[in-house]
């Protein structure tokens, strides 16, 4: 079928499409390799013996494999990276639950309920999509400082329960609007409350978008650097990202092996999510066209 379709245009010899696709594939494989090379090099750098790192080393294959750098990096600061990983995990999970719950409730109101002032609030919500967070940063900091929340996780978690990230609301409104209205109407006839419609009808039908939101939320919270940087001062409460930054400061750039080892570990959760939920991530980007 394919060959016939390709051969159809007049003047095309059958060999041309083959040559063409060989050329395209070699170019794409070349670019893929170039794109991945730094990442692969970081992974290989993390398992090299310390003296193997320099001296014009460009090969991806280490002369010998050792996990020494992982050990040095893990215990490279006064608190081990195990604590940082647990902190990151806890903050990311709590933030994700907050984002999904608050955004779905809000999106339900905007997409399925009628109330006075709806379009006004909706316009304001859309307005905050583009607002740089810097503009709320300082008063928020002052607020959390006065509440004695600085140096705790609370400023990183609690705001998510108030749907501060409009992206997730937007994502879910798009999806909820696609669900058939007849479902709500039938349920309303049967005397279902709005809450039951949300909980029993809309949410179960929206698992794909809830999963997409959860995945993005987890990744962004995991990768967040700025929030933890300003709010977490005590090393016991550090996230992985801040831990990495401290590792640079403490070891300088002398111990690339340890830095690479901890960097690789910090990427593993995101990489696993990418492996298992790639389709959801790509659909999420393609449908909303937002962010990473």
């Amino acid at each position, binding site marked *: 079928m394919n060959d016939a379709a390709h051969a159809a245009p007049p003047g095309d010899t059958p060999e041309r499409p083959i040559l063409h696709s060989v050329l395209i594939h070699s170019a794409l494989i070349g670019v893929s390799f170039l794109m991945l090379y730094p990442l692969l090099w970081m992974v290989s750098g993390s398992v090299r013996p310390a003296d193997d790192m320099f001296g014009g080393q460009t090969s991806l294959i280490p002369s010998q494999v050792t996990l020494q750098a992982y050990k040095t990096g893990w215990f490279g600061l006064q608190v081990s990276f195990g604590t940082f990983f647990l902190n990151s995990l806890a903050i990311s999970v709590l933030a994700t639950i907050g984002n999904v719950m608050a955004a779905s409730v809000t999106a339900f109101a905007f997409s399925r309920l009628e109330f006075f002032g709806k379009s006004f609030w909706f316009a304001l919500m859309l307005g905050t999509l583009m607002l740089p967070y810097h503009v709320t940063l300082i008063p928020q900091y002052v607020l959390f400082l006065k509440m004695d929340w600085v140096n705790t996780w609370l400023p990183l978690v609690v705001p998510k329960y108030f749907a501060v990230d409009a992206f997730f609301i937007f994502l879910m409104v798009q999806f909820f609007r696609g669900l058939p209205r007849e479902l709500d109407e039938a349920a309303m006839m049967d005397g279902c409350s709005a809450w039951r419609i949300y909980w029993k009808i809309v949410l179960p039908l929206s698992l794909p978008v809830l999963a997409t939101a959860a995945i993005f939320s987890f990744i*962004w919270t995991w*990768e967040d650097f700025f929030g933890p940087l300003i709010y977490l001062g005590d090393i016991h409460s550090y996230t992985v990202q801040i831990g990495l930054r401290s590792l*640079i400061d403490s070891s300088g750039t002398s111990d690339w092996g340890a830095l690479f080892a901890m*960097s690789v570990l910090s990427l593993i959760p995101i990489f696993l999510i990418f492996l298992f939920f790639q389709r959801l991530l790509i659909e999420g980007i393609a449908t909303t066209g937002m962010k990473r």
Partner: protein
Amino acid sequence: MVSFTAGDAVARRPAKPGRLSRFFFAGNGAGYMFLAPWLIGFLGLTLGPALASLYLSFTDYDLLQSPRFVGMDNYVRMATGDAKFAAAMKVTFIYVILSVPLKLIFALALAMAFNRGIKGLPFYRAVFYLPSLLGGSVAIAVLWRQLFAADGLVNSVLSVFGIDGPSWISNPNYSLYTLVVLSVWQFGSPMIIFLAGLRQIPQDMYEAANMDGASKARQFFRITLPLLTPVIFFNFVIQTIDAFKAFTPSFIISAGTGGPINSTLFYTLYLYQEAFGFFRMGYASALAWVLVLIIAVFTAFSFLTARYWVHYDE
């Protein structure tokens, strides 16, 4: 009589407005119940703080003493007496102007290469998307710092070809460009959006163009590009706003200094230094509002010019 008519009215009314008002009342009640978390967050964590920072931008505030009103001083200082602000503006604009078009060109070129149902698309798409997903993390900035160090991978590769590369990161002539490369490396997500946009273009247009003997290049410029302009526009606006807000790479690569000689001092990094390094909260608030202004002017300008080059399907 009177009571009868009144009673009549009361008896007649509830049928219609009663149900209506009950509907409205119930609807509003449920609506605002569901809206409550967002509404509290919006008023307390977004709108309130935004207005507060607007006020703070006219004050001198160090967190210890209460804000002291100084009028336009912060803005005047920015415009006239702050070399570091000028440096941050220059660095940020160079970064935006270079990285956004390059990134979009790569994204479009690869989306085009994939468009005609190429074999192995899921694999390539995954490979190209991965950097976008990981790119924002500290780990990648750490990696970049090593790649472009004096004894880093880039120079090792160059030395194979007999080229003695500079220390990219610590040379103010090159340091910013390493960050541009880092941004362009993450062209995967705009590429996915382009792919989705390309799929919307009806295939029969190309078939008709083929019939008429239009060359591939002509088809690209006459069909693909015009029909893709809404997506290009969208990617352009989103990527530009994102580029203005970039922070992590410049912080990690320069160890928070924006150096060497302010060559990687992103606007947001300067804001961070003013706010959390020197605790000049008033000045930092003014910086934040100037950033909003820049983004607003850019967005408004984009939308105003859009009707001259963006093709909308009527």
